[in-house]
């Protein structure tokens, strides 16, 4: 009797943990930012290009990018985003990207609003690099995949 109850609790817990949901699918996409955005010192150029493509594939085509600190807003095709990712990654010898304090809201079907903090730590071509930014993003479910349709770098400290 006790064993059956334990098995039921464990099964319920596993079902709750692994049951597919939009939020879990979004978290998987966000986890990709950390894994394919980061760069090891020994990374080969081809591996870098593959990772940049994987990262660019998380963005809608096109995607609106806003940097509040520079009063900049633009809508960019995926190809241009990929080229920019390749360029930015080349500035680093090694970089680790991590996302923190993620809050995912699903205000309507196939639309998600995400807030979080992104952190970059690593080694640039000449010095150590450490940066933290707050992000606000919108994702839409397009052809079964959650993709970024708008990303805003929030200005926390305004000069």
């Amino acid at each position: 009797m006790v064993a059956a109850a334990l098995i039921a609790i464990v099964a319920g817990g596993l079902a709750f943990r692994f049951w597919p949901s939009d939020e879990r699918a979004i978290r998987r996409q966000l986890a990709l930012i950390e894994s394919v955005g980061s760069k090891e010192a020994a990374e080969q150029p081809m591996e870098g290009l593959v990772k940049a493509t994987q990262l660019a594939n998380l963005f809608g085509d096109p995607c609106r990018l806003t940097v509040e600190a520079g009063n900049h807003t633009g809508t960019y095709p995926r190809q241009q985003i990929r080229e920019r990712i390749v360029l930015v990654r080349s500035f680093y010898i090694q970089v680790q990207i991590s996302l923190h304090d993620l809050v995912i809201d699903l205000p309507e079907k196939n639309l998600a609003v995400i807030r979080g903090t992104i952190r970059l730590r690593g080694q640039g071509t000449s010095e150590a690099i450490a940066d933290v930014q707050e992000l606000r993003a919108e994702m839409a479910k397009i052809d079964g995949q959650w993709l970024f349709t708008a990303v805003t770098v929030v200005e926390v400290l305004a000069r």
Partner: protein
Amino acid sequence: MVPPKLRRFLLPDLNLRYGLRLLLVALATVVLFTQALVPLRIEGRSMEPTYKDGGFTFCWRGRYLISEPARGEVVAIRFAGQRVMLLKRIVALAGDTVEFRNGALFVNNAWVNELYVRTPSDWNLAPRTVEPGKVYVVGDNRTVPLDRHQIGQVERERIVGGVLW
């Protein structure tokens, strides 16, 4: 011979009463270190020499419950949440005018003697007025070029608390 009271304290009976006490202590610890004294591991050099890279302190969240942040105080500033925070020093309050001239800080056109700054600086920043509901924060390490140093006015509500030491 260990006194019975001390023995009971060190080797308590594993009964329900002990379990409840353990649970209460665990809960109190979690509440204390997530809601009141948030541990901070310092990464980065923007607050050197006051706070060194790799150092440790606590964010005291009760610091501004009954008082307002003041000039010269070091505060923890949150981003989207509280897992990653910035440590910065308040140099000006809402309505103040802030300016850097060849590394020297001027608030309301008066020079501020910043004893916590130990390194020379060549920062120049045109005068600007801090908006209502905000404070102006700067790091203590002025050797970093101004364009790569995170400084500026921040909403009062983003200040999570002060630092314990």
